[in-house]
């Protein structure tokens, strides 16, 4: 289980620049990032090197911050690797809220971040299928 930081941001030029600058100044390393957006606002989701530090930096700057549990899956880094994982989820009718890929990867593996409503079921399924997940420690997140 990996903890992800999500931040509410309005769709305005310079918003993301200011936010990442603040994290940089605080010494936070962003390991993975994705943005979901609507016309009015976006949700920035990140895996960061230090969750508590990130939360405190952002809250000091008056952002609304959420912490969510996500699953990082080590997907075989080969054609069809991701398709195989997704097919498993489809068979079991596990809904994916969202997913994105991690910057950097392990040997022969690409890391994908999954947000699933039923996380235990996902972990059980991955275990049965011999697909590895990655821990927070392995990602160097504290």
């Amino acid at each position, binding site marked *: 289980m990996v903890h*992800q930081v*999500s931040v*509410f*941001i*309005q769709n305005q030029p310079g918003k993301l620049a200011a936010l990442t600058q603040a994290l940089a100044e605080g010494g936070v390393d962003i390991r993975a990032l994705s943005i*979901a*957006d*609507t016309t*009015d*606002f976006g*949700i920035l*989701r990140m895996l960061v090197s230090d969750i508590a530090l990130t939360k405190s930096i952002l*809250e000091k700057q*008056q*952002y*609304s*911050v*959420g912490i*969510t549990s996500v699953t990082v899956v080590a997907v075989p880094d080969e054609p069809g690797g991701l398709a195989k994982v997704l097919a498993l989820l489809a068979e079991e009718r596990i809904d994916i*809220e*969202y997913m994105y890929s991690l910057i950097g990867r392990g040997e022969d593996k690409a890391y994908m971040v999954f*947000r699933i409503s039923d996380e235990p079921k996902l972990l059980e399924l991955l275990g049965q299928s011999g697909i590895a997940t990655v821990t927070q420690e392995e990602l160097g997140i504290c």
Partner: protein
Amino acid sequence: MSGYYQKEIETASREAIRALQSERLAATVRRVYENVPLYRQRMDEAGVSPDEIQSVDDLYKLPFTYKQDLRDTYPYGMFAVPLKDVVRLHASSGTTGKQIVVGYTQNDLELWADCCARALVAAGGSAEDIVHVSYGYGLFTGGLGMDAASKKLGATTVPVSSGNTNRQITILKDFGSTILCSTPSYALHLAEVLREGGATKDDISLKAGIFGAEPWTNEMRAQLEEQLGIKAFDIYGLTEIIGPGVAFECAEQTGMHVNEDHFIIEVIDPDTGDVLPEGTQGEIVFSCITKEAFPVLRYRTRDIGLITRKPCSCGRTLVKMTKPRGRTDDMLIVRGVNVFPSQIESVLLEQGYTANYRIVVDRSANVDSIEVEVEIGTELMSDTIRGLDKKEKALEEALRSLLGISARVRLLEPNSLERSLGKAVRVVDKRKLLD
């Protein structure tokens, strides 16, 4: 020039009107003192006995009635007759979800119909006309008020009520409606839909429109007259007094004649409560002197305006009031519906939002829109768009259910709304409603 509905009253001498008002005021004061505990208490506190109110000149001695009084006595505390004599209830929304309710006896309904029938005749109406009523029918006074007037005048009434604009256009064309009663913004919207459908004012038979329930400008009047091929008349009223028909415009179109045989108008300084002379702008105050079920005395409307007794070319001697020129409170009128920012605030707080919000009212294609911008705190944060959408929808639904009109919600980052040191700017009204 069109005629009058009740010539003897509408063109009576000032002296005759004053004498009538004085007699009716004295009787009403005695009656409410006997029957409405709040008035007895207020008058006792002010040291005014009913016997001291003998004429219009004594009116200033009476304490004011405020909207809060109507809420505090909700639902029936201000009724001056037993409920068995009340044949109709109407209601209007109030702050924090608490509406006010008003009652009418059969006589009240009759005099209300008379008041509105005067407006119809002043607009050139007669039994020959087909009156298209696009105000909402129901607890709102607009629909049933104009409906009763049309019926009383013997005109053909088309009770379309509000909504379904395409059907309204078809009815205007096919039924040959000659007088339209609606909010002015809805009338402009009708004109636009008519045009979009490839039709013109020549395809409809309207000759006049009686527009009220919201502020409108002379610029809108020019547009309405041009686009619908009509003469556009203003009508004024509020649920607390009776509904539409408290005052109405004549062909001169320079203000609205107050139905002074039923309502006494005063203009006061909203801060001191002092009565202001004719021609001076202030808060408009009404006293009901004929109503049986719900006769409020010196009711603070919060509307700003002035009165004039200059002779009118229409021949009516009834005093004229200007269109309201603003409010002494923060009430907004959106699509004819009264909206208080405090109502919106109460919904936000209920749903876990902070009181950092801004209400933006705008008008596009002659339809009012209301948008509520609210800052989203960490406790309401979600990591999914769906999660935030759900919160937006829940808030929109709660606002719609409270206000009766839909409002769009826009979530903002915390601390993104400007903080002011003094009174927070909660409302931005981009519509140009006042001349």
